[in-house]
């Protein structure tokens, strides 16, 4: 499993665009927002937590089809399926690799981009915490979507249509944590809900993803 993880990480780094693309997209989304809503700092500060969350979510979505697509094309997914590793394990590792290459950089970049959006001082910690807790759920849910659409020729658009509704609860609780943190309110309840969704998805969704992948490899 660790070998598979290392292989995926190495591939992501060497192929380029793994870290870079998601981060650049995140940056561009955040830069575009002031053009759309105007440069008024008070307004930007108020919507900053939500914008950061949506930007991170979209950046995450952008790289989802890479999770299985390359392995599917060159046939290594078939080899992985016949390996002694259970399919659930493979799927979990793939999600973890996606999180390390996409989710983690987004989490670390979010506070820096918060400066651009005039995020209130109390918000940095909670944006960081909520993204750190929420992005694993985004990766796991996204892996399920990627597994669903792996065999399709033009799966990219369909993938977003399938995955975005599934992202709704995570986004709601994650953005709520960030917003309440930025306004200096108590964050426990949404934070616990967010953690619940993350860990619940992590525990249960790999089974669904594995089942879907098995069907697609049939």
């Amino acid at each position: 499993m660790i070998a598979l993880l290392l292989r995926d990480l190495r591939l992501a780094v060497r192929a380029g665009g793994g870290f870079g693309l998601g981060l650049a997209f995140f940056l561009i989304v955040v830069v575009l927002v002031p053009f759309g809503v105007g440069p008024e700092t008070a307004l930007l500060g108020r919507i900053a937590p939500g914008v950061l969350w949506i930007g991170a979510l979209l950046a995450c979505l952008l790289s989802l089809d890479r999770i299985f697509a390359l392995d599917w094309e060159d046939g290594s997914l078939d080899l992985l399926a016949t390996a002694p590793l259970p399919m659930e394990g493979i799927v979990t590792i793939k999600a973890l690799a996606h999180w390390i290459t996409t989710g983690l950089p987004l989490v670390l970049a979010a506070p820096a981009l918060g400066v651009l959006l005039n995020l209130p001082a109390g918000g940095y910690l909670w944006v960081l915490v909520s993204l750190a807790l929420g992005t694993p759920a985004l990766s796991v849910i996204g892996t399920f979507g990627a597994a669903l659409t792996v065999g399709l020729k033009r799966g990219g658009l369909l993938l977003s249509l399938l995955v975005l509704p599934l992202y709704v609860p995570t986004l709601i609780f994650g953005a709520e944590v960030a917003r309440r943190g930025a306004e200096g309110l108590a964050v426990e309840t949404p934070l616990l809900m967010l953690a619940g969704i993350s860990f619940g998805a992590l525990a249960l969704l790999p089974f669904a993803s594995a089942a879907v992948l098995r069907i697609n490899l049939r």
Partner: protein
Amino acid sequence: MSIWEYANPVKFIRTTDKLLPWLSVAAVVSLVGGLVWGFFFTPEDFRQGSTVKIIYLHVPSALMAINAWLMMLVASLIWIVRRHHVSALAARAAAPVGAVMTVIALATGAIWGQPMWGTWWAWDPRLTSFLILFLFYLGYMALWSAIENDDTAADLTSILCLVGSVFAVLSRYAVNFWNQGLHQGASLSMDKEENVADIFWYPLLVCIAGFVLLFIALVFLRTQTEIRARRARALIARERMA
């Protein structure tokens, strides 16, 4: 005699062929009857005026939007466990009907909301979760039409339906948490106290029955069509082989 006999497509078609005319007539009669009764023979609400009458479209369609998804969930489970093709096709057939019901519920709600709440749309938990439900329907139908192999499509959409149901419920509670409601409480719960008055209640019941019958008739019809289309494809393929 068990319900599983209807898993045989021939038996299913034969039975539904017999039922379909009756169902359609009953659906039309109860819909027309319920709507005419509701629109023209009930008094106007003293606060809402005549706008109250949209309830006869809004409530039944909203009810069916959710129940259609439930029916798809059950049919998907049957397909996963017992692998009866009719079940998967019925789930497929129900999706567009459910999506249209969701649109009707949202549209009638907006039309009623404009004069009553003063806005076409509010980010109220109920409204929002219906919009999300609509997105789920879209994704489900898109996945069905995107995959060429029928059995693979049935398998994948069934699992999507299962996972989607869990997330739809999650979203329902999440939006509840996220925003306070503008939408009124249940008007049809078992608890008599909070229900609508009897005079609106009886035509509403007839309308609900009409929507249920309409849904069943449409699902039967669409499932039949699907079975026949599949048989036609198989015959063409056989012809080509010969």
